[in-house]
């Protein structure tokens, strides 16, 4: 079969992209979703706090998803559920399988990659110990509790203080489990302050900064963990071991953009974001293939996923309706104290403001963030505080694009 635009992934990124494609004139859009319903991970994020930026109200994950699902349905945009894309090539031929059609192919004029992330696992960390039952990623535990209605355990230790770990500390506590500790190897939590207070402090759950799990105990089922303090190189310090008796360990240790399909058609990835290299239109280095949402960069807020996906949808529609255009790229680059900048390329042939997204490497108080092109400073913003857990943005206005004659660098300097 043939479609103008195929969107891979029916989570928040895919949904917002689909609506934007349609509203920008490309009506022949289809969403391919691996799960049994649209909405992606939002379906299991039953806590509130979504949509504060976009809708100016605090929604639960399912409520946020439903607003977009309703928009998709209103437009009669086609979607396939329970459908797994198994390959994608540069000619935009998609091979997929599902229970009703079996194996099938779609030829697309444009593709939007919106596959999201998966969680880093215990294996990725090489935690020593046995392999008993009772070890879950925080998101898996979240699915068990919120979607399946099972409790994975009663006595819990959580490794990693990212937002999912914090949210699950509260969730398990509310459902009657005892969360003994949240361990964080870094000297700070990457979670939002609001979550530290409302998920840990509210319930008296201790957060151990500069600590990690050095051993998991138990043969059939987890019986406990050894937790050690770490030095500034994040190496465990001998003699600081603490033992916690528990039957469950949750890992909340980061997300990895799910880019297998992206790699399979040789789309260049950024080692910094582990997502595709894109321009401000969210077009990858393969014409007509776009990427948006967490498959591109891990966002803190779904509101920004929606915003980014609308950009991808708009330009994908433009590509389908008006054809490919010549590019005039200038690179962006992370300077001092910045861990990454997105987009990695600015296409000067595309008019319009360019919003740069970036993260700082550490917690900085009283600092100045600059965007430079050679010796000239394009933008400068003073900040009272910048933290790695909150994505920063700066806007390069349209009038400045023509003057970009070399790599655009974002840097942060402290003012003291």
């Amino acid at each position: 079969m043939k479609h103008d635009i195929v969107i891979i992934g029916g989570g928040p990124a895919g949904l917002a992209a689909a609506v934007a494609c349609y509203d920008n004139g490309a009506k022949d859009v289809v969403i391919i979703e691996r799960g049994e319903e649209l909405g992606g991970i939002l379906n299991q994020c039953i806590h509130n706090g979504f949509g504060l930026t976009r809708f100016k109200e605090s929604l639960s994950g399912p409520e946020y998803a439903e607003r977009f699902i309703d928009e998709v349905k209103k437009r009669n945009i086609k979607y396939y559920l329970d459908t797994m894309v198994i390959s994608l090539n540069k000619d935009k031929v998609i091979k997929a399988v599902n229970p009703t059609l079996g194996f099938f192919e779609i030829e697309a004029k444009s593709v939007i990659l919106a596959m999201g992330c998966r969680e880093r696992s215990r294996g990725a960390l090489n935690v020593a110990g046995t392999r008993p039952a009772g070890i879950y990623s925080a998101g898996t535990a979240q699915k068990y509790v919120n979607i399946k209605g099972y409790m994975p355990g009663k006595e819990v230790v959580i490794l990693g203080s990212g937002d999912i770990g914090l949210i699950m500390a509260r969730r398990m506590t509310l459902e009657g489990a005892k969360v003994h500790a949240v361990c964080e190897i870094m000297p700070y939590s990457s979670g939002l302050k609001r979550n530290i207070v409302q998920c840990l402090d509210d319930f008296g759950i201790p957060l151990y900064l500069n600590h990690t799990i050095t051993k998991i105990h138990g043969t059939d089922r987890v019986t406990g963990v050894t937790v050690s303090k770490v030095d500034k190189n994040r190496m465990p310090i001998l003699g600081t071991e603490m033992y916690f008796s528990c039957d469950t360990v949750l890992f909340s240790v980061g997300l990895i953009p799910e880019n297998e399909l992206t790699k399979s058609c040789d789309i260049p990835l950024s080692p910094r974001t582990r997502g595709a290299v894109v321009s401000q239109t969210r077009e990858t280095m393969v014409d007509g293939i776009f990427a948006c949402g967490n498959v591109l960069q891990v966002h803190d807020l779904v509101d920004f996923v929606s915003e980014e996906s609308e950009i991808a949808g708009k330009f994908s529609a433009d590509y389908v309706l008006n054809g490919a255009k010549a590019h005039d790229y200038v690179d962006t680059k992370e300077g001092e104290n910045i861990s990454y900048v997105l987009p990695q390329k600015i296409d000067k042939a595309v008019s319009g403001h360019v919003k740069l997204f970036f993260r700082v490497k550490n917690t900085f108080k009283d600092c100045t963030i600059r965007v430079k092109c050679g010796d000239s400073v394009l933008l400068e913003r003073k900040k009272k505080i910048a933290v790695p857990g909150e994505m920063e943005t700066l806007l390069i206005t349209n009038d400045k694009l023509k003057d970009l004659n070399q790599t655009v660098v974002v840097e942060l300097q402290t003012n003291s």
Partner: protein
Amino acid sequence: MEVKNLTCVECPMGCQIEVGLSNGVVEYVKGNTCPRGKLYAENEIKRPLRVLTSSVKCVGGKMLPVKTDKPIPKDMMMDLMSKINACHPSLPIKTGDVVIKNLYEDVNLIATKTIE
């Protein structure tokens, strides 16, 4: 004089705020860098409120996400959880439908998902 320590959640600064109380009345607030911090601390001392979210098992076994339609006192959360878990709504249900009326005073528990 009683002293309470709080972390402000109004922005990423996360100011460590100290509140001095005498007989439950706020005497001073310090450690905040802006007026929002003072207001946050005063409210947290007076009566900390939270929106409670959970999921309940419907008749037939499907899980339904729910939330309180207004914030409830923080110290009531655990008590209300047993009431929430004892409830098994029947389907279909729409986002915003009341699952438990007057869960706490005039606060209702409502569905946050439409399930056919």
